[in-house]
């Protein structure tokens, strides 16, 4: 079974999530600041935050926790990492596609609001799969040496 360096894998995942979330946050901030926002800002933020924050905070907290440890050579299953990264990118693309596709769908104002609600139908299950894949990835880690907590950091 092929393995990948855990720190490197986690950083790649964190990078993908930070990039995707950053784009989504940036887009929604700009739309909210518009004089004629295409979505009601409160409803759009109510939609976006549950889509991104749970997974994003999980990944960031893991990366931060790992950074506080000194490891010899921790590794994780490569396939689990690839599935996690692929699903994460797919999910982030789905999240971004909701506001990005709205202008092309010729929707009324009420239908745009409905789109946010409807998108939960496909975003929810994919978000669940991303969570499962990330869980499998973290479980697949193997420590070659005992972890040591870095003092004073």
């Amino acid at each position: 079974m092929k393995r990948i360096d855990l720190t490197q894998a986690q950083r790649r995942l964190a990078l993908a999530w930070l990039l995707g979330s950053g784009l989504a946050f940036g887009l929604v901030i700009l739309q909210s600041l518009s004089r004629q926002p295409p979505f009601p800002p409160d409803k759009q933020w109510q939609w976006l935050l549950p889509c991104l924050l749970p997974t994003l905070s999980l990944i960031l907290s893991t990366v931060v926790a790992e950074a506080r440890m000194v490891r010899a050579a921790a590794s994780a299953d490569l396939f689990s990492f690839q599935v996690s990264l692929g699903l994460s990118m797919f999910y982030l693309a789905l999240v971004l596609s909701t506001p990005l596709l709205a202008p092309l769908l010729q929707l009324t104002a009420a239908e745009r609001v409905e789109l946010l609600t409807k998108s939960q139908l496909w975003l929810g299950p994919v978000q669940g799969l991303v969570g499962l894949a990330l869980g499998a990835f973290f479980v697949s880690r193997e420590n070659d040496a005992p972890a040591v907590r870095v003092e004073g950091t």
Partner: protein
Amino acid sequence: MAPSIGDTSPFPLFRFIRAVFLVPAFGLVLFGSSTAGPLDDYQGYWSNQDPDAQGIARLYIRGDRVQGVDKRCGLVRDLPEVTAIICQRECPEGGQTSAAALEAVFSGTDEEIKVIISHSSGPGRLKIGVMRRPTSEATKNWTWAEAELVKLEAMGEGADGLLPAFPWPPPKASARAFLRKDLVVGNNAADDLGKAFDRIVTVLQKAGFSSSEYSVYSIPTQRGFVVVTKIENIDETGHFIPKPHRFSADEPPASRPRTLLEYLKALFNAPPGRFRFIALAVTDLVVTEGPVAPDAHQLEKALREGGKFLPSELRQIRLGSDRHCEALVYEFVRPSSAAEEPRFVPSSNLSAEQHLAGATILRTHP
């Protein structure tokens, strides 16, 4: 689907038993728990507040006379005035006459409608049970439906008992204009309100307003009437957005972007929704504006409460030489999205004539 009562029995005895026992039995089920109320409390205009509800949409009760408006499959029709049967009438000496329920029977050529009216739990509410059966079918099964009607607030002081009253002075308008005399009120002094109303209806129908897209209200002391059109989706030039978005409170979809620049513009900017109501007041009173700005929801609600025709008592009235028709345009804009309430535009960028031309009520700009 409404439940069905009755039988298909060819035996007259069974039909007699059904008529004598079964129909009143349903009335008892519905109204058995309700208490008798003063007959005066039944009086007035009553409306079903659910705009999508089928069946009796409005009732007007005056004494023991009942008029109704029936809505079935999108068709609205007026039920003729009938004398109601007062159930369990009580006339205490020196007290008010009370009744447990009123029963009005509207017999049409195609359908027989029996409406049992009783007081509901809350004040200003009536409970109705509506029984229908077709007159043509051999089975003649009754169908049964229930609804709650709310007393119309518009039917307040100043109303003449014939129509709900339009707020007077009218709410602040976005734009106002006189309509040419020959267009509505007529140059002939002998023309009555009925003729003016018919001309308005003709103009509105030519402009694409069906009977469900306008309502008529009285003006205090029978000095005219006001016809209010349904909310209209308009563009920035005042022209209405074609159907199916014309009479919608939701702005139409933006057109599909063709270039990257158009796409980026659409991504960050939604076109604002523009709406308007037009009130055509025929009166010999001086029309002034009230201090209060109208609310789009109030106007929409009022439209459901208005009448669809001018009662004969009002039709016969002849106004004085000051008679005129004035158009009041109420424009609303929703700047961003569906979650925001449309805001009243105190002063429209367009003139009332441009609005009327945009609605094709006036064919050309004067």
